[in-house]
């Protein structure tokens, strides 16, 4: 079976690359082995929150020159980065995913990081946010004085106490309340299975979200901030908007433990946009047994399709990091399991991880070694029609930098452009 481009991986990076190519008339196949990191999304996209040395970043585009040479952003270059950064909101809007930035914008219209409230009650920098999330301009001045935090009775994946404590430290007076909704009570039969998506499914029904909204309205007594878990608008985020209109004060939705409701919504919409543009998406299938001849990939196989050869002009690998099984760690080395690409990791095993869980972790910086246009190498020899994008690209520690989504999107756009340029 023949396609123009075959993309291995089904997450944010693959979908952005696939949609961009497919809309430009390139016939794409995405091979996706199970769901992806969007299901763990905070509801925001980070571009760059911190430099590798720990310096906090206010305006990501102004900090690009401080990044090391091997960083994926440095490979793309400031000009292209600026172009893509400007392109992103409209790109996602056309896929049904509306994103907003912090209200301030910097010189030349470049983004200024906003801050989102985390489930632990801290504030983290980010670039763009989905409808659910409210972005703050500063991490120190909180423009509200009294907050009402409302949870569903029995829902353990949203810890109102942490948020109250965190905000309390910043001088916000917090009150925590629980509400009981009959439709949600059913979920308590299996207490460990009372999860975000279960509640979100109930909250798609008009009677139930309205009951929740009016109970919160009754509870509120002059608070200027109301904080709710991100469990609304699974199919359509309009419910998020309706709740904001219904409840007095600023209504802020804060992330829960996974799965992420805004993340799943974004994933479903991006996949739909890819398919609507004519792309083919293989769910629950794994790429294997590629043929590589003379520095070119000539075909791949998948577990489900067996002996059928899938061939294309170009191939994209965006199958994730260690967590997504795009990379695998053995006791002595890090491998890329589909093509056996050259990877970047320190030979000193003890530097792979730090015992302090919250410290910068060495393993987050592992990745596939790529050239300036994200083409990888096998035994030091470049593969000319294979591109790598997303978290699999080496050269940065995106968890530490707060650049996970940014790297996924920027590398995908850059790879799509390289493929289009070579057409």
């Amino acid at each position, binding site marked *: 079976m023949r396609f123009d481009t075959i993309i291995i991986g089904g997450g944010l990076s693959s979908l952005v690359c696939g949609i961009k190519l497919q809309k430009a008339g390139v016939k794409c196949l995405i091979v996706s082995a199970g769901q992806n990191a969007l299901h*763990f999304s905070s509801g925001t996209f980070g571009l760059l929150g911190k430099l590798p040395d720990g310096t906090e970043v206010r305006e990501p585009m102004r900090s690009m020159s401080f990044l090391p040479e091997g960083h994926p952003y440095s490979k793309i270059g400031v000009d292209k980065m600026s172009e893509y950064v400007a392109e992103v909101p409209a790109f996602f809007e056309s896929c049904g995913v509306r994103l907003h930035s912090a209200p301030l914008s910097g010189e030349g219209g470049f983004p200024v990081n906003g801050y989102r409230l985390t489930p632990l009650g801290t504030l983290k920098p980010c670039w763009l946010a989905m409808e659910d999330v409210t972005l703050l301009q500063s991490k120190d001045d909180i423009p509200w004085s009294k907050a009402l935090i409302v949870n569903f009775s029995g829902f353990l994946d949203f810890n109102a106490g942490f948020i109250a404590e965190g905000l309390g430290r910043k001088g916000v007076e917090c009150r925590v309340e629980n509400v009981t909704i009959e439709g949600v009570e059913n979920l308590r039969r*299996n207490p460990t299975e009372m999860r975000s998506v279960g509640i979100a499914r109930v909250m798609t029904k008009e009677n139930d979200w309205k009951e929740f909204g009016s109970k919160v309205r009754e509870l509120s007594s002059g608070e200027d901030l109301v904080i709710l878990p991100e469990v609304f608008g699974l199919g359509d985020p309009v419910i998020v908007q309706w709740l904001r209109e219904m409840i007095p004060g600023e209504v802020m939705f804060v992330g829960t433990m996974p799965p992420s409701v805004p993340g799943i919504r974004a994933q479903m919409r991006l996949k739909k946009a890819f398919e609507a543009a004519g792309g083919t998406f293989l769910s629950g299938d794994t790429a294997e047994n590629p043929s590589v001849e003379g520095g070119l990939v000539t075909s791949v196989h998948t577990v489900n399709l067996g002996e059928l050869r899938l061939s294309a002009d170009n191939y994209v690998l965006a199958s994730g990091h260690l967590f997504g099984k795009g990379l695998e760690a053995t006791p002595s080395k890090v491998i890329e399991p589909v093509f056996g690409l050259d990877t970047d990791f320190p030979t000193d095993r003890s530097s792979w991880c730090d015992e302090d869980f919250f410290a910068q972790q060495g393993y987050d910086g592992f990745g596939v070694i790529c050239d300036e246009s994200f083409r990888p190498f096998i035994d030091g020899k470049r593969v000319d029609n294979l591109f790598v994008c997303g978290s699999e690209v080496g050269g940065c520690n995106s968890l530490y930098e707060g650049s996970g989504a940014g790297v996924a999107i920027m590398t995908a756009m850059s790879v799509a452009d390289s493929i289009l340029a070579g057409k």
Partner: protein
Amino acid sequence: MQEKNVSFNNFEQCIKCTICTAYCPVVAVNPFYPGPKQAGPDGERLRLKNKFFFDENLKYCMNCKRCEVACPSGVKIADLIHSARRRFAREIPDLRDRVLANTDFMGKFARPFAPVVNSVVASKPVKAFMDVMMDIDRERTFPKYQGKGFTRWFKKEAADSQSSYSKQIAFFHGCSTEFQHPEVGKAFVQVMNAVGFGVKLIDEECCGVAMISNGLWNQARRHAEHNTKVFRKTVGEGLPIVGVSSTCVFTMRDEYPDVLDVDNSDVRDSITMVEKFLFEKVDSGEVKLVFKEDYRARIAYHCPCHNEKLGWGIFTKALVGMIPGVSLTVLDSNCCGMAGTYGFKKENYKYSQEIGRPLFEQIKSLAPDFVCCECETCKWQIEMSTGYTVLNPIVILADALDLEATAKAN
């Protein structure tokens, strides 16, 4: 040092992300079902300690496999659930479950009296009786038994000419082709003959999927062993085994080893769906299809859960998409809620309709000429719930192909 994780159905790979539960159609509507994470890998840890922890509510799993398709860690969640049912379930299948599970026996039994059986089971008093006495929901309509089965037609009309083809394949027709939808089998033979393949029937038994769902494990295993033995002989003769029902094919490839512990590794890759078989032949240039010039249809394609799990929906999409006068819409990936015999049962009927609702609504809003689907029980559910006709892709192909011209081209 142990370098790789090795655990039963990969259950230790579960990281508790709950993505499976997010995609489970049952847990969305039925509060009694604990959900795939709890029923599968979480429960397995406890069951390993003590079978006392087995939860009878695992019976609510429809075995649609959507959890496995969604799992980022490759855990065989539904296999864990069904093998736990096989090992630990204490509930004994009742008469209703036995009747529903024995699709082949019931077909043979009902066939001589087909017109009578069809009208009797369609009558309101009988439906009310079955509802009260057997817990088969009275709202459910039954697929009609055909007086003349597929194999009888085959022997009379087609068998003699099959040896004249130089290339041969073995056809696994399944129970529904034999008893309810012989037109699917006839279409299969027509298309295969047109593209130059002779069709051979084999000594098949029901694939056993309904026995697995209804807890008739020993019987299911006997069927699996019989079929696998027959397949071994067939493959030994150099013939692939080609089917028309995605559930039969999926069961014989994957449920035999994963749930019933029947080793089919030597024949598994030779068991295929007709759409995959045909597509590969067309793709390699071995087979040419010539379509009628005046065929026109607006078709909506529903990929059944088991074909979604096989990952073979693309072949149907590609083949039906090749027909010049067709406009094809691929429906959103949703379960129809029928899951074989699940939707017949009174305790599941309401949930089965609720699960299928998004699919039914999408079909109604698209208003296609008909729906295309490889699974007979999806067909029953969609036809009953939407009023739209559902056709197996091979029936659509037989209708759209210029069979004479195709035969000349091959």
